[in-house]
């Protein structure tokens, strides 16, 4: 255990208040014995210094990783190695999380033990990519970490210009709204594209996220290059008796809170009976979320495949656009895989370095893009079809 914790008056401010504090957690790690404690203590020092200097003291990138892999480790070095020698290297290790983030407690304990042995004891469960994030390891410890992880049945996730670790909501494992097996699809895609995940060969990152229904609990529409969002194409299932119960419960006003908030105005309520014009339902989930005991997604279920979102820290967010309005999501998911490969071929060939697929589409134009990957334009691809039909349909000249 380190003899004395670094003096950190500035970042100590971040321990005040009722919310969780990462500073408090790093201080706990700094009390660990051995290298983990020493690293966490120097991490506190660098952080304090950064708050004083008003700049970050980290550089990232370079040649760092495990044999054969081009992703999974993000090289981090501090630019004050003499002052903070224990965190001269402080690499991040991304570990591919289980589908739906289910763990047994003994596995979580083993991961923590492993990170106290080789790293800093500081983790981030989970990072925005979905991976288990292990923070703070020296270059010479990477291979031992990898060996221990693989022995436990884990693998590294993606980083750099590759397929990033796909992630999925808990789907059918816990949620009655799941319109397909998100965890199964996520696992299958992860296994199929191991090469693309571990051997970076794209212009930039490519994320898959699997959401079981339009509630989109993994925020795939805003945070993944390819969003696979569960949906249905028949009618919403309705239990009329349960609808009446909700109406009589007095918990909400059926007209104002449910019908009035339907984005397409496709519901009506005469005080007794709820009617839905399903042809105009855009599957927003609002009414189903409001009355979960009375309404449910239809029985003919699958997913909508969307493309092109990204959530950068600096520039504006980009939401994904519909590519395939309805796909039956059944193993082995051949259609989805073929579509992804066609997109990679085109973007790989013509994309600029660090250009996400959504930015690539913006640059070359959606109609060009669709033509190149062999998809016909359809109205569902238009974000606001009634006000802004930005796809121009070419009418073939007749002889």
């Amino acid at each position: 255990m380190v003899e004395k914790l670094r003096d950190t008056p500035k970042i100590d401010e971040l321990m005040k208040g009722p919310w969780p504090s990462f500073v408090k957690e790093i201080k706990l790690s700094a009390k660990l014995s051995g290298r983990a404690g020493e690293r966490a203590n120097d991490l506190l020092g660098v952080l304090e210094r950064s708050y004083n200097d008003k700049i970050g003291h980290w550089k990232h990138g370079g040649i760092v990783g495990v044999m054969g892999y081009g992703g999974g480790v993000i090289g981090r070095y501090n630019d004050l190695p003499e002052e903070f020698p224990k965190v001269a290297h402080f690499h991040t290790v991304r570990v591919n999380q289980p589908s739906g983030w289910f763990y047994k407690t003994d596995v979580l304990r083993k991961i923590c033990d492993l990170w106290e042995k080789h790293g800093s004891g500081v983790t981030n469960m989970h990072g925005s990519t979905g991976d288990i994030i292990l923070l703070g390891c020296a270059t010479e410890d990477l291979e031992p970490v990898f060996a221990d992880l693989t022995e436990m049945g884990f693998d590294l996730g993606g980083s750099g210009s590759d397929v990033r670790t796909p992630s999925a909501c808990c789907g059918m494992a816990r949620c009655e709204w799941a319109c397909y097996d998100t965890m199964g699809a996520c696992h299958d895609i992860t296994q199929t594209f191991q090469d693309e995940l571990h051997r970076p060969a794209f212009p930039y990152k490519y994320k898959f996220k699997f959401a079981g229904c339009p509630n989109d609990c993994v925020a795939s529409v805003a945070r993944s290059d390819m969003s696979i969002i569960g949906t249905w194409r028949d009618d919403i299932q309705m239990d009329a008796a349960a609808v009446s119960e909700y109406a009589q419960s007095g918990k909400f006003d059926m007209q104002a809170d449910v019908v009035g908030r339907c984005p397409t105005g496709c519901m009506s309520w005469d005080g007794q009976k709820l009617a839905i014009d399903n042809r105009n339902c855009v599957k927003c989930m609002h009414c189903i979320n409001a009355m979960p005991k009375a309404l449910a997604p239809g029985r003919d279920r699958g997913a909508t495949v969307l493309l092109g979102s990204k959530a950068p820290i600096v520039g504006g967010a980009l939401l994904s656009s519909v590519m395939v309005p309805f796909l039956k999501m059944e193993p082995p998911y051949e259609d989805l895989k073929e579509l992804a490969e066609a997109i990679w071929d085109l973007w790989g060939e013509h994309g600029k370095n660090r250009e996400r697929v959504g930015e690539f589409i913006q640059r070359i134009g959606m109609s060009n893009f669709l033509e190149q990957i062999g998809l016909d334009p359809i109205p569902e691809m238009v974000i606001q079809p009634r006000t802004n039909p930005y796809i121009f349909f070419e009418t073939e000249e007749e002889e």
Partner: protein
Amino acid sequence: MSVSEDQVAEAMYAMIKEYHGKRNLKALDLSKAMIEKFGEEECDKKFCKKAIRQLIDSGRCTYSYVGGSYIVLPPDSPDAR
């Protein structure tokens, strides 16, 4: 195919060595150059992928990240000096 995976890997390695310290090469830069050199009939993208795998798995080359993922010589390679 009359071009072997080893030949493509060697040609890629020569290119990486030539550009070492001057320009970073991505997997796609290597594949495009090989397809141009040997012709698509002899060397397609899948074949190039195998050659890259050979270079990485043998330790002759490694991945590096400099605002994008590149394939480079390991720092301790005699050809990197």
